[in-house]
């Protein structure tokens, strides 16, 4: 089990290194960078949805808060991008804290509606507060991060930064779900009453994980702003919140590594489907439907299930073959 886990980390590190060395194409590197940013968002949302069972349909708002805090502070006030990132985390988590106190008293669909409303409000503010945010036309000229005099402004350099963050966040999250707190989260998902009867402060735990997942989203937002150097409200709307939920479900609820896969598949797929022009959305939807019908527990478990089935089938054939031979 431990070696299996170690292997996964090794595999991730080696894949990243290999990508860095072999890929000499800015488009592919940028695509990988966006997969990384989406992974941060999806892991956070998965902790909240897949593990704790709390649905958020407004997660793009925290992403937007991180991005706009970074964007506004660096362009308008000349703040250092790294400091702006930290302040973005503060804004995202504080907002989640304030929103979470009333919202998390709601359960199921009501929580989904409340977070949906919040997401729409943030989207409207980003559009309307033009003097701050630049309105619908967005905010340009956001500076890149720089490290010891080296500007992280090429896809290759950003790749190193983003995937280092992804590795870190994946490690923290994997630790978290396999701990006292992670078990309490899953317990809360299955039976809030039983969890409470064992001393789990369910209200507080929900708030903690909500703020924690907003923190991931704000981190992703800030990275996005300093990667693209331009942000506009369109990236942080309702549709993107829905897309994040889809990534969680396709990758697999309550699966840290599934989040990586879900983010990768749903980031690459639209790029591949561009050749179909107008049919793109239809094919995209069809693929999602097929995945959900045949792999309701997500891609990771779905593929594992098929693999196990194949193995059993092969073993079955071997053992019957052996019997007829003897």
């Amino acid at each position, binding site marked *: 089990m431990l070696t299996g886990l170690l292997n996964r980390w090794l595999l991730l590190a080696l894949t990243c290194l290999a990508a860095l060395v072999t890929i000499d194409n800015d488009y592919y590197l940028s695509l990988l960078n966006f997969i990384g940013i989406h992974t941060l968002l999806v892991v956070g949302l998965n902790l909240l949805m897949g593990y704790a069972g709390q649905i958020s349909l407004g997660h793009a708002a925290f992403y937007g808060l991180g991005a706009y805090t970074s964007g506004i502070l660096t362009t308008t006030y000349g703040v250092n991008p790294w400091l702006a990132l930290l302040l973005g985390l503060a804004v995202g988590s504080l907002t989640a804290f304030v929103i979470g106190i009333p919202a998390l008293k709601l359960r199921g669909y009501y929580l989904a509606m409340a977070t949906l409303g919040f997401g729409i409000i943030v989207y409207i503010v980003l559009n309307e507060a033009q003097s701050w945010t630049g309105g619908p036309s967005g905010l340009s000229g956001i500076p890149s991060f720089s490290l010891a005099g080296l500007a992280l402004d090429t896809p290759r350099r950003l790749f190193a930064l983003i995937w280092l963050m992804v590795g870190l966040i994946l490690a*923290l*999250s994997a*630790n*978290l779900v396999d*701990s*006292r*707190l*992670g*078990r*309490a989260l*899953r*317990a809360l*998902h*299955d*039976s809030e*009453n*039983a*969890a*409470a*009867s*064992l*001393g*789990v*402060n*369910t209200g507080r735990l929900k708030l*903690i994980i909500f703020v*924690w997942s907003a923190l991931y989203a704000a981190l992703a937002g800030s990275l996005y702003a300093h990667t693209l150097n331009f942000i506009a409200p369109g990236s942080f709307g309702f549709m993107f919140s829905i897309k994040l939920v889809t990534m969680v479900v396709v990758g697999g609820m*309550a699966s840290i590594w599934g989040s990586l896969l879900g983010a990768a598949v749903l980031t690459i797929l639209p790029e591949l489907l561009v050749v179909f022009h107008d049919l793109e959305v239809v094919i995209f939807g069809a693929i999602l439907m097929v995945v959900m019908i045949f792999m309701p527990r997500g891609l990771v478990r779905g593929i594992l299930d098929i693999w196990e089935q194949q193995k059993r089938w092969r073993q079955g054939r071997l053992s019957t073959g052996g019997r007829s031979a003897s």
Partner: protein
Amino acid sequence: MAEVLLDLQGVSLAFGGLRALEGVSFQVPGGIIKAVIGPNGAGKTTLFHLITGFLTPQQGRIFFRGEEIQGKPPHVIASRGIARTFQLVELFDHMTVLENVMVGRHRLSRAGLLASALRLPWTRREETEIMQKAWGALEFVGLADWARQPAAVLPLGLKRLLEIARALASEPELLLLDEPASGLDVHETERLGEMILALKDQGLTIILVEHDMSLTMEVAQEIAVLNYGKLIAEGPPRAIQRHPEVIAAYLGSDWQ
């Protein structure tokens, strides 16, 4: 007699016009098994919900070890040392049998968000201890062989045992069992009875709500009888069996 562990004083609760409990007062001395019996709808489960904080009494007070606990949230009451099982089993279905019991250690461990995410060295030691204690509780109820299975696959009888193991892992002073024998066959019920008596011998105080009268009479030292939300009798099993009001409540007053 041992000192009073749980003390209910005039506890009342009505749901709209329905008086679920009316001025119920009784005491539970430490170290005994006290059964609460009564016909369906007499208010037994409501009583459990009041003691464990899932409901708040409209009148009356509840003392645990001399401290008022009525109206406190369930997790606070749990952390004081009261554990319970549920009439309709409430397990964490998507977690393994072992993990279910590990959640029982929640109140006795302290790793928070950052310590868990960073996996600080002391949290590993704590995890080891959680794991050991959880195994101990599983072995006590005889579920160690099922440890790695998801809780959802257990048959009902074993699910009830798992709920007990999970509650025991929290090392409570007072354990509330809500119809633990319902859905069990004769052998399972017999084993359950032995287990309850063994727990009492270890010094645990137990309140038992149960319809199986032979089990109740066998294990309980004291019995409280509820009928339509009122306490109609209280005493040792033998006295209760002959109590006229109890007989009337169970068999109808026309009987005799």
